[in-house]
C-alpha cells in the first residue's frame, strides 16, 4: 500500500466534497435535521391530555372530584360544559381527547353509601395513548375513592386522618426509576437517534460518492491506473468517515446541550464506539455502491437497508427485548442495535467497557467484515 496514493485519492475526494455546496449541505445538515425532527417528534410521553368536564350534579363533592383533573399535570383542562351535545362536538373535533361526566345526585348517593358511576369518554384512536389516559383517570379516581374511604373511616371510628389513611390504604407503592429518573421518553430516544442519524447519512453519502464515479465514468481513471484496490478504497472512504465522525460529535453535543440529556458515561468510550459505528455504516455504503450502478438506485437501496431495520429492530422505538423471537434474531443481525445499547449505556447508565465490551466488539467485527467483503467484491476489471 502506497500512502501517497491514498492521500491523493482522499484529498481529491475531499476537495470535490467541500466544493459541492449541495453535498456539504446534505452531509452536515441532514443528520442534525433528523435529530431535531425526530427528537421533538418522537416523544412518547402522554401528558397534558386535553380534557373537558360535564358536571350534572353541581355539588361541592363533584367540584372536588373534578378539581383533581383540572390541577393534574397529565391533563389540560379545556372547560366545563353544559350538555351532552357539546361533549360530542369537543371530542369529534379532536379539541378534547377525554371527557369526564359527573351524573346527577353524585354527592347525595355517595354520602348515602350507594355506588356511583362516573362516565369517562376517551378518544381511542391511538390505543397506546388511550390506555395511558385510562391509567391516569383510574389513578385519580382511585385516589379520590381512597380519600373518601379514609374520611369515612375517620368519621365512623373516630381516628385521626393519618391513621384512617393507613387503614384505608395499607400498602404504599414506592417506585424509584433508575437511569432515566424522570422517565422522560426523550432521554431514551435521543441517544438512539444519534445511532439513527449515523446509520442513515454515512452510507448514503458514501454510496452516492462512489456510484457517482461509476455513472460519470471517472471510475475508469482508477480501474486503468496502477493504484491498488486498498489504496483507492481507503482514500475514497476516508473523507466520508471523517465527515461522519464530525457529525457524531455534533450529534453528541446536540443531545447533551440542546436536548439536555444527561451524559453519565465515558466520552472517550462513546466517541470510540461512534467511530467504529461510522466505519460500519460507511462500509454498508461501500457494499451498496458495488452492487448498484446508478445514483438513484444507490439512494433507494441505501434508504431501504438503512432505515427499515434501524427503525424496527434497533431499539429506537420498541425495546429489542420485547420483540418476537424472529425479530429479536434479526435485531442482532443489524449493527444498529449494538450502538443503541452503547449510546443508552453511556448516556443514561454511565456504564463502561466492562459492561459494553460485547457491543464494542460486535461493531469492530462489523466494520472489519464489511470492509473485507467490499474489498473482495470490488474489481478493477468488471464484467460490464
Amino acid at each position, binding site marked *: 500500500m502506497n500512502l501517497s496514493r491514498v492521500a491523493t485519492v482522499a484529498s481529491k475526494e475531499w476537495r470535490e466534497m467541500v466544493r459541492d455546496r449541495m453535498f456539504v449541505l446534505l452531509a452536515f445538515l441532514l443528520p442534525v435535521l433528523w435529530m431535531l425532527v425526530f427528537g421533538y417528534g418522537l416523544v412518547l410521553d402522554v401528558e397534558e391530555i386535553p380534557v373537558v368536564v360535564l358536571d350534572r350534579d353541581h355539588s361541592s363533592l363533584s367540584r372536588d372530584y373534578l378539581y383533581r383533573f383540572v390541577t393534574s399535570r397529565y391533563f389540560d383542562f379545556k372547560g366545563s360544559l353544559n350538555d351532552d351535545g357539546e361533549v360530542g362536538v369537543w371530542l369529534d373535533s379532536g379539541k378534547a381527547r377525554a371527557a369526564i361526566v359527573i351524573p346527577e345526585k353524585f354527592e347525595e348517593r355517595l354520602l348515602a353509601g350507594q355506588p356511583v358511576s362516573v362516565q369517562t369518554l376517551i378518544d381511542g384512536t391511538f390505543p397506546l395513548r388511550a390506555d395511558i389516559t385510562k391509567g391516569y383517570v383510574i389513578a385519580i379516581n382511585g385516589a379520590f375513592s381512597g380519600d373518601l374511604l379514609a374520611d369515612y373511616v375517620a368519621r365512623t371510628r373516630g381516628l385521626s386522618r393519618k391513621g384512617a389513611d393507613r387503614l384505608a390504604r395499607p400498602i404504599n407503592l414506592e417506585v424509584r426509576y433508575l437511569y432515566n429518573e424522570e422517565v422522560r421518553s426523550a432521554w431514551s430516544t435521543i441517544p438512539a437517534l444519534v445511532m439513527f442519524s449515523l446509520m442513515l447519512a454515512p452510507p448514503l453519502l458514501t454510496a452516492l460518492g462512489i456510484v457517482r464515479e461509476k455513472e460519470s465514468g471517472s471510475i*475508469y481513471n482508477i480501474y486503468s*491506473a*496502477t493504484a491498488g484496490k486498498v489504496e483507492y478504497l481507503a482514500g475514497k472512504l476516508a473523507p466520508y468517515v471523517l465527515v461522519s465522525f464530525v457529525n457524531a460529535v455534533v450529534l453528541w453535543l446536540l443531545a447533551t446541550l440542546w436536548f439536555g440529556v444527561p451524559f453519565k458515561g465515558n466520552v472517550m468510550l462513546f466517541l470510540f464506539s461512534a467511530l467504529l459505528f461510522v466505519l460500519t455504516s460507511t462500509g454498508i455504503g461501500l457494499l451498496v455502491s458495488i452492487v448498484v450502478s446508478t445514483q438513484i438506485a444507490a439512494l433507494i437501496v441505501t434508504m431501504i437497508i438503512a432505515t427499515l431495520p434501524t427503525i424496527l429492530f434497533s431499539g429506537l422505538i420498541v425495546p429489542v427485548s420485547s420483540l418476537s423471537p424472529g425479530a429479536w434474531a434479526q435485531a442482532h443481525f443489524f449493527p444498529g442495535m449494538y450502538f443503541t445499547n452503547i449510546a443508552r449505556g453511556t448516556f443514561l447508565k454511565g456504564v463502561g467497557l466492562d459492561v459494553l465490551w460485547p457491543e464494542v466488539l460486535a461493531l469492530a467485527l462489523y466494520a472489519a467484515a464489511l470492509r473485507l467483503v467490499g474489498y473482495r467484491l470490488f474489481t478493477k*476489471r468488471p464484467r460490464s
Partner: protein
Amino acid sequence: MKEMETEPSSQHSDTVVRVSQFVKRYKKHVAVDGVDLEVRRGEIYGLIGPDGAGKSSLMKAIAGVLTYGEGTVEVFGTLVDSERAAELVKQRIGFLPQGLGLNLYPDLSVEENIDFFARLRLVPKHELAERKARLLAMTRLDKFRERAMKDLSGGMKQKLGLICTLIHDPELAILDEPTTGVDPVSRRDFWAILAEFLQERGMTALVSTAYMDEAARFHRLSFLSNGKQLVSGTPAEVQALVPGSMVTFDAAPQPEAMARLKASYRQVEALGPRLHVFTDSTDAAQAVSQIETALGDVKPSNVRVDEPELEDVFVALLLRRAERQAADDTVSFPTTNRDYHGPAIEAKGLVRDFGPFRAVDQVTFRVEPGEIFGLLGANGAGKTTVIKMLTGIMPPTGGEGWVAGAAMKTAGDTIKERIGYMSQAFALYLDLTVVENIRLFAGIYGLDSRATEERLRWITAMAGLHGYESSQTGRLPMGVRQRLALGCALVHRPRVLFLDEPTSGVDPIGRRRFWEILSRLAREEGVAILVTTHYLTEAEHCDHLALMYAGRIVAEGSPSDMKSQVEHEAGRLLEIDTDVPGQACRQLKGAGFSGAALYGAKIHVLSRNPLEDEERLREALASDGVRVKAVSERPLSLEDVFVHRVMTLEQQERAASRETGA
C-alpha cells in the same frame, strides 16, 4: 510476466497490442464477435464504427478494465486475462474513456485534475512540473490552470482529458472516441497534438471514432460494425479492397436521375443539387460514359471524378454484407398544395440576448420551399437559439421571422401546426412500439382515424419500418429509430421541417438512407428543411449553408461555393506522401509552410500556387534527404472550410483585442 504460448515467429517485433478471436458478451448480447488486430509501436491505430459497433468494449478489454469471454488480448507481450495480469501493464497504458470530459472532476481546477492523475500514477514531482508545463503549453491551456474543469469549453475539456491521460508518459494511449461532440477546429487541434506526442515520445495510440472522415488520419485501422470486423489495414489497403471511382455531377430533374441511376448503382447520393455515384470502374472516362448510359436522356453536367473516400469504401463493404435494402423505393411523396406564399423560412435581423450576453446577433437568411438549408457552427454558436426563436418556443429580443407564411411573433400556434421538429435525442417513447409511437404523435396533432391510418401506412413504407411495427422502440437499431423519429415529425404533413443534430450515432448506411429520404421530401414533396449539424460530411447534402460563429452568420453559400471561396482565399490542398512524415512535416514548417499538418501518415498543406509550391517543397525535402513518394491535390472538405473560417475569425478577434488592449 507470463510466458507466451504463441511462437515468436508470428510475432511482429514491434507489436504493442495483439488481439485474436476476441469475443465479448453482455449476458446474451454479443457486443464484439471474433476480432483480430495488431497494433505496432509508434502508430495511430484506428477503430472506426457507429455507436454499438463494439469499439468501447474492445478498448476497455485492452486497457485491462473489462473482462472478456473468448480469445486472447496481449499487451506488451503480457496476456491480459486476469485482474492481476492487467495490473502488470497498466503503468505503461493511458486510457481515456468515452464521453467528453466525463472522467474528469468538474469541481477541481485544470491543474488539480492534472495533479490528481499524476500523483495517482506516482509521477515524481520534478518530472511532473516539467511535463505539465509542456503539455499545458502544447494545448494552450496554460492560461486556465486555475479554472474549474466544469467551466471549460468542450474542446478544452477534451484537451485536458488528453493531458490527464498522458501525464504519466504512457507507451500506449487508448483513447475512446476523443473527438465525439467536439467542434471541427478543436478536433483538428486534437489530432495535431496527438501526432506531435507520437513523434516526440515514440508513443503508440489506439483511437476510436464514429466520424468516418477521420479514418484517413490513422496509420492503420479496423472498421467495426455490429461487433464484427469488416476490414482492417492501412487506409490505402482498405481503399484497394474496393476499387472504383466517385463521380459527382449536376443532373436535372434530380429525382428522375436518381431513380434511373439506382437501377444500376447501389451507392447513389444527392449532395445538394449534385449527385454522387460510386462506380466499380477505376477508369474515369469509362466511369462517366457508363453513368451517361444509365442516365439516358438526362444529361450530366459539371462532371468530376475522384478517388473514393474511405467512407464510400465502408459503405460499399457494408452493402456487400447487408441484404438488399428493405427500403420501399416505390413509396410516393405526393406533392401537396402549398398553403402559404413566399419563402418557407425567413429570418430578418434576429437578435437574442441572455442578460448581457448576445447569443444571436442580427441573423438573416431565407429558405425556399423544397430546399435543404444547413446551419453550421460549433457548440454555443447560436444554432439552437435560432431554431427555438423560429419555432416560437423562445421570443426574440429583436428582429422578425416568418415560417411557412406565418409571422413568428404573432402566429406561434399556426407555426407549430405547419412545422415538424426532430431533435438530437429523438423524442420517442422507448417503451412503446413503433406503431404506438406513430399513433401517439398522430393523436397529439389531432389527426382523425382515417388520416392516422393513411399516415401510418405512408410512414411505415417511407421509413422502411416493415417488420418492425410491433417492436419496442428502445430495442431498435439507431438508424431505424432515427427514421421512426423522422416519420413521427412528419405525421401531420408539415410544410417545414426542423432537424436539430439529427444523425448522431447512426451508422453510415443508416445516415445515407436518412438523407435519401430527406432529399426526396424536399425534391418531391416540396418540404423545406432546416438542419443543424456539426458533422460536416453531412453538410455536403445541403443545398445551402450558413456558418454561425459567436451568434453571427459569417459565411453563406452552397457547399461548392463555400469551398471555392476558401480555395480562392487560402489556396488548394496538397497531400504529400513521404517515408518519414514526422520529420518531413517539421522540415516543411521550417521551410516556410507554416500550415503543414500531419494527416495520418501523410502531410497536408494549403497552397495558393500549387505548381510552384510543389517544386519548392520537393526541393526543401530533398535537401534534407526525405524521399517524396507523391504530391497530389485533394479536394477541400467542408471541414477545411469550417476550420479556415473559424481560425481566421479567431485571429482577427485576437488582433482586435490586442489593439484595444494596447
